Structure formats: structure tokens, C-alpha cells
């Protein structure tokens, strides 16, 4: 099966003027479509750098990254933006909702530059909010939502373009364990539809739902472990 994500000798070195920090040092691995991959590691292991490279937010100093058939290092800035919009859904630990927009409007933000009828955008946002259990709370501002609800809005926002890959950075880090479980249920449900999930986390409890785990240490893969089998349904890229 063709991997949906392919990393080959990926290195990321920050700094200059004599100060150089190696965040990633020659990492290579493939991710198949439909995998639920959890990336763990201590602080400074290179997890967040990995996520930003996979999300096309930065280009590695060395190596090749191909996602869904696109060579990210060959894409221009606008091409990377289109790639993020169509292929990647981001979920952040701190939700990063725009505080002056309602839940519905936050979900609609990625569609703002698109020439789609407003009614269509609203219906799409309402459906997504309903799918994450927020029906009836569409008009609430982030300040009127709990942490778990805010993270659900963020997930709905990430799914608005139905991306084949969902990248999550400590999505349960700011939530209590019960709410965290509910959020993980959403990821599992979405993964169950044949999508690929990459989650960066410190929390080993998150491993229970994953099909595979990679542990990073000092910018290198220390351990790559298959946790359970998975079924790959075709997903459009």
C-alpha cells in the first residue's frame, strides 16, 4: 500500500551565528492511510517540530516529506497553504479559537477565503458542530464554552474540509481525564472512517487507541512500535 505520509532523512536545524540546535536528525518513516499514530517523547525530543513539518508549516533543512502525493519541499507558499487547507486538519492543545467569533463562525474560518454561498458554509459548520456534540451551542462565544467544548469546536474546525490527515498537538493536555476521553472518542470515531491521525502527546493513556507509536529522543526515532492492526478504508486526498 502506498504510504500517505513519507519522511526520508528529515533533519531540522535551528539557529545561526554560531548557535545551532538540532531538533530532528535524519528521521525516516512512512505512515499508511488509516493509521492512528501517536508520537511521544520528552520535551525537546522534536515532537512539535515534527508536527509543524508534517503540517507544511515549515520546511525541513534536509530530507524529503511527501504527504498525499505532494512533495512539500517543492511547493510554493500558496501551494503549502492550499495543502494545509485541503489535506491537513490541525488541532492544538490550547484550541486557538478566535475569541470574537461564535462556535459556528470559528468552524467557518477556514472557508472564509472561499467563494461558497454563506448558507452552505453555515450548514457545513452546523453539521460538524452537531457531529462533535455541540448542537444548540453554535452561537456561543469561546468564552461561554468549557475547555472540552472549545476543543470540540477546534476539532470541528479541523474537519471542515474533510482532510485525510488530522494532526493533533496534545489535544487533551488542557482537559480533565473524563473530558479528554470524550475528545479521544471523537478522534477514534473519525479514525474509524478510514482517516489518518497523528497525535503528539506526553500522555501514555492516549496510546490505548493508537495503532502505532513512535517515541522520539534527541531528534531521532528511538522506538517505532505497532500497537494494533487497523483497516485502511480508501480516503480521498
Amino acid at each position, binding site marked *: 500500500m502506498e504510504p500517505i505520509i513519507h519522511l526520508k532523512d528529515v533533519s531540522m536545524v535551528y539557529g545561526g551565528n554560531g548557535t545551532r540546535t538540532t531538533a530532528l536528525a535524519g528521521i525516516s518513516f512512512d505512515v499508511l492511510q488509516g493509521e492512528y499514530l501517536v508520537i511521544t517523547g520528552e520535551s525537546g525530543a522534536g515532537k512539535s517540530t515534527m508536527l*509543524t513539518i508534517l*503540517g*507544511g*508549516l*515549515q520546511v525541513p533543512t534536509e530530507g524529503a516529506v511527501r504527504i498525499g502525493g505532494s512533495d512539500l519541499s517543492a511547493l510554493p*507558499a*500558496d501551494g*503549502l*497553504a*492550499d495543502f*494545509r*487547507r*485541503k489535506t491537513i486538519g*490541525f488541532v*492544538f492543545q*490550547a484550541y*486557538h479559537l*478566535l*475569541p*470574537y*467569533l461564535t462556535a459556528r*463562525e470559528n468552524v*467557518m*474560518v*477556514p*472557508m*472564509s*477565503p472561499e467563494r461558497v454561498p*454563506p448558507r452552505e*458554509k453555515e450548514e457545513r459548520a452546523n453539521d460538524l458542530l452537531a457531529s462533535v456534540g455541540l448542537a444548540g451551542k453554535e452561537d456561543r462565544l469561546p468564552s461561554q464554552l468549557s475547555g472540552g467544548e472549545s476543543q470540540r469546536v477546534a476539532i470541528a*474546525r*479541523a474537519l471542515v*474540509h474533510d482532510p485525510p490527515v488530522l494532526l493533533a498537538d496534545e489535544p487533551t493536555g488542557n482537559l480533565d481525564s473524563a473530558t479528554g476521553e470524550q475528545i479521544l472518542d471523537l478522534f477514534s470515531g473519525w479514525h474509524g472512517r478510514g482517516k489518518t491521525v497523528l497525535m503528539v502527546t506526553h500522555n501514555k493513556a492516549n496510546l490505548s487507541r493508537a495503532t502505532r507509536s513512535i517515541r522520539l529522543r534527541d531528534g531521532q526515532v528511538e522506538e517505532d512500535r505497532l500497537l494494533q492492526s487497523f483497516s485502511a478504508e480508501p480516503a480521498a486526498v
Partner: protein
Amino acid sequence: MNIRKLAWKNLLRRKSRAVFTGLGIFLGIATFVAISSITSQMEGAVQDQLDRFGANIVVSPRAEQLSLGFGNMTLGGTEVTYSRLTMADKERIASIHHKDRIRSIVPFLVTAADASGKNLVWMGLPAADVAGARPWWKIQGGMGLKRGEVLLGAEAAALLDKGAGGTVTAGKRLFRVAGVLQPTGEKEDGMVIADIADVQALAKRPGAVTYFEVAALCKNCPVEQIVAQIGQALPGARVSAIRQVVESRKAAVEQLRRLGFGVSAIVLLIGGLMVLVTVMGGVQERTREIGVLRAVGFRKRSIFSLLFWETGWVSLLSSLLGAGTGIAVAYIASPVFGIEHPSVVFSPAIFGAVAGLSLGLIGAIPPARRAAALSPTEAIRSL
């Protein structure tokens, strides 16, 4: 949800910043519109004041210089006058198409005649028109001139050794000296000034006029057209605009206009800089938000467009508000600037609103470019 609505929502969230951003444009446009409106109306007022200060057109008989000679010998020259002006010509001048622009027509008769045994130049004009035709004269001993009275130029008074209350004889007639002019530096210093009817009688030329002085109200009226119309009404006359007077009036008004534009330009520039600084500061503050937008797939162009729309909304609203305020201020303050009949001048308001919007958008370009150029890496670090 689209970029315009997103921009609007963000403005509503940051009301105080939006107000501060718009304040520069508001003040700039309000000042520009107020100054332009007042200046525009003052042009009329100043022109009116200047028009009251003497004539700007002279109507005299057409004459030609003929040189006389015999062989190679030059015998001097003489002036041949084709026609003469009379008091009846005043009516013809007053009947031209632009008659409503003519404030006054004053006939003058200049002749040499005896004055208490001295041969002096007499200048006659209607006694009632003295104050209007020569408002800069300062008369010692009185203001009024009546039939049977004369005013003496300073040099003439010294020559005749006469003062106010004295008398001057001319032939068999006796004139009372109504006053003496303070020195003007002009030819009238050596003249005897009297009512035109008295001078006509003295010269035995009833109804005769040497020249007319015409004062035209020239706000937005071409003097040249009035000159041409008078020329048509009096084919035998030479009509000429006193260019020095006309040009100096235009220059005075132009200077006033330039002053207004200069002040407005400075205020507008400051307004533009305020927009630039405020929006630039806003970009710094919003690095995280821009990072989120980049992460969810906003292109550089979309970020630029977002910042542009935000400033566009602020600029549009503050420009319209500034233009309205400028009109109101100009209307209320008009009497302070000597404008007797204030009116609403819309053209500066329209220009101001467009200029304010343009200025705001131009001021937003550098920060919008900066925001668009913000690398996702830099933006995402703050997430």
C-alpha cells in the same frame, strides 16, 4: 463568514484600537474638509472685500497717437480721439449681459482750469461716489463733498495755501474747501477734486466724461468677458482691465487656498502615519491569530486582504464621519471668518472622504504586507 465579515468582527472586538486608528483619519479629513470649505467660502468674501476696494476696469475714449513730420524732420505728435464719452454711456455700460456683476460705474472728468489764480488740474466725479471710488483717501476737515465744494490734494492745498473751510475761486465761481487729502503719492495730490457737474460747467463741457472706472465683482467671473461686453456696448471706447489689480486679487485668494491645502496636507499625513503605526502594532499583537489562520490554510493574499479590509472599514467610516464633521464645523465657524452667508460646500467633503479612504488603505499596505509575509513558522511558534 468571509474575509470582509471576519475583518468587521475583529474590528468590533478591538473597538478602542479601531477608534484610535480611525481617529487620525477622522481628524485629518474633518480638518481638511472644514478648512477647504471655509477657504472656499472665504475666497468669495475676500474677493468681495477686494472688489469693494476700488475699480478694476477703465473705460476711456479710443485714441491714436499720430506722429507729424516733414521729410526727415520730426515735428512731434498728437493724439487723435475718435469719439468722446458722455454721461449717457453709463447706462450703456450698465446694460451689458453681466450687469449683475458690476458693483459701480463712476464717471470722471479731468480738465485744467484756474483755481484762485493758479492753473491746476481739476478732477470731477459724482460727489456721492467719492467714498466708494476712493475708499483709501483720508480727508482732513471732513468727509462729505457736495456741489459747490472742493477737496484739495495735499500739494494743491499747499500751493494755494488753503485748508478746510477756506474758499477757492474759479473764474466767477466760488467753491468752499470741504477738506484736504492726506498725501497719497498719486497725481490727485496736486489736483482739485469737485463734483463732476461743477467740473463740466467749469470746462463748459456739459455731460462730458474723460473716463469711467468700473468695479466688477469678480468671484468666478472672467474680467475679460466683462471687458469684451463693455467694448461691444461702447464701440468707440477703449476698455481695459487693470491687470495688476486683477492679478493681485487672484494671488491673494490663491495664497489663502494654498495655506488651507498646506495645513490639510500636514494633518492628513499625520493621520496616515497614525494608521500605519497603529495597524503595524496590531500585526505584532496578532501574530498568534495570524498563525492560526495560516495553519488552517489562509494564503498570504487572504491575510493581506483581511488586514486591508479591516483598515478599509475603519478608513471608510472615519472618513465619512470626518467629512460630515468638517462640513458642520465649517458651517458653524463661518461667521468667525467673516463669511456673512455660510453655505454647505460638498466638493471638499466628497474629495475628503475619498482621500481619507485612500490614505487609510495606503497606510495599511506596509503592515498588511508584513502580516502576509509573516512566516507560518514564526507565527506558529507563538501557538
